[in-house]
């Protein structure tokens, strides 16, 4: 019963993550670029500006999110298959490869820096997630100790 049943098994979950990340990016991009296009348009053309900004930019944001999420999921599954265990390091290693793969056309230095940044970011996420789950799992109720009677100073 320790398995996480809210996520599907490995090869197929890549599709799910691709779609989920893409949808998140498109919907977030609609909000973001809608507001941006609205604010950056002259009066009288604000609605039109918002629509055209959404049309031009939201799919691109969605695509970027989707590629990141899908690549991460792919690497996560590969790392799981190679290491044969599930822990926080999987995400860090997968983040390292994802960051590197996405920056691979920018040269060796760019690839290395991006991979390390991405791995650190994922490490922070995992750490925060573990801390959160620990806090949520054990509500810290301070035990009530009987107070010691103050000693009378002689």
């Amino acid at each position, binding site marked *: 019963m320790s398995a996480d049943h809210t996520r599907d098994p490995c090869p*197929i979950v*890549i*599709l*799910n993550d*691709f*779609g*989920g990340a*893409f949808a998140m990016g498109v919907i977030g991009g609609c909000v973001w670029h809608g507001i941006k296009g609205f604010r950056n348009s002259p009066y009288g053309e604000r609605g039109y500006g918002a629509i055209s900004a959404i049309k031009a930019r939201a*799919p691109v944001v969605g695509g970027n999110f989707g590629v990141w999420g899908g690549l991460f999921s792919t690497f996560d599954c590969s790392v799981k298959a190679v290491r044969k265990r599930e822990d926080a390091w999987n995400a860090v290693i997968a983040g390292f490869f994802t960051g590197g793969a996405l920056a691979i056309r920018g040269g060796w230095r760019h690839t290395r820096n991006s991979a390390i940044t991405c791995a650190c970011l994922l490490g922070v996420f995992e750490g925060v997630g573990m801390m959160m789950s620990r806090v949520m799992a054990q509500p810290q109720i301070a035990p009530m100790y009987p107070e010691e009677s103050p000693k009378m100073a002689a």
Partner: protein
Amino acid sequence: MSWLFGSKPKTEEQSQSDLKQSLGFDPAQVADVSQILQTPGVLDSSRLHPLAGLDKGIEYLDLEDEQLTTVEGAQGIIPSRSWTDDLCYGTGAVYLLGLGLGGAYGMQEGIKNIPPNSPGKLQLNTVLNHMTKRGPYLGNSAGVLALTYNLIDSSLDALRGKHDDYNTVAAGALAGALFRSSAGIKPMAYSTALMAGAASAWCGIKRLLQ
């Protein structure tokens, strides 16, 4: 492979004798607790062990959030828990398809356009540039279309309470219309017809696969 292709939801009606077999008493005849405790063999330690009775098969606790979708006719190719699963899988598959097709098209375009007598690095760069020009554009458009289609489809399912081919085609037509709604009447009609056709083709493919 049942996790990949799904299966018809099983409706197992537990008969009374089965229930008596697994519980050790007949729930229809129980009046109070002492009656249960007096039943012979109910306090047998081999039956009270947590792993006892595994030979009769495991009784699964059907948790609320792990249930497959209960909408009539919506049990598709991939088992889905809710509309979010449909959305993620549909969008992801179509987006990847678009990305792959666009990338392949860009690749052959790039290979055709390689400047003559260029070094290998430049050749590789030309091909990659063409791929990254075509692939994401097609993938993004297809992904947005699939996202809209899935959102409308799930809404129609929820409204009508069931899922059938009319839903799919209507959702496709609406998604196509919305996609080109700002380009004018004629492009809108074209994309509506195209998406309705694609949706009905998908209906047929789903029939074949199931």
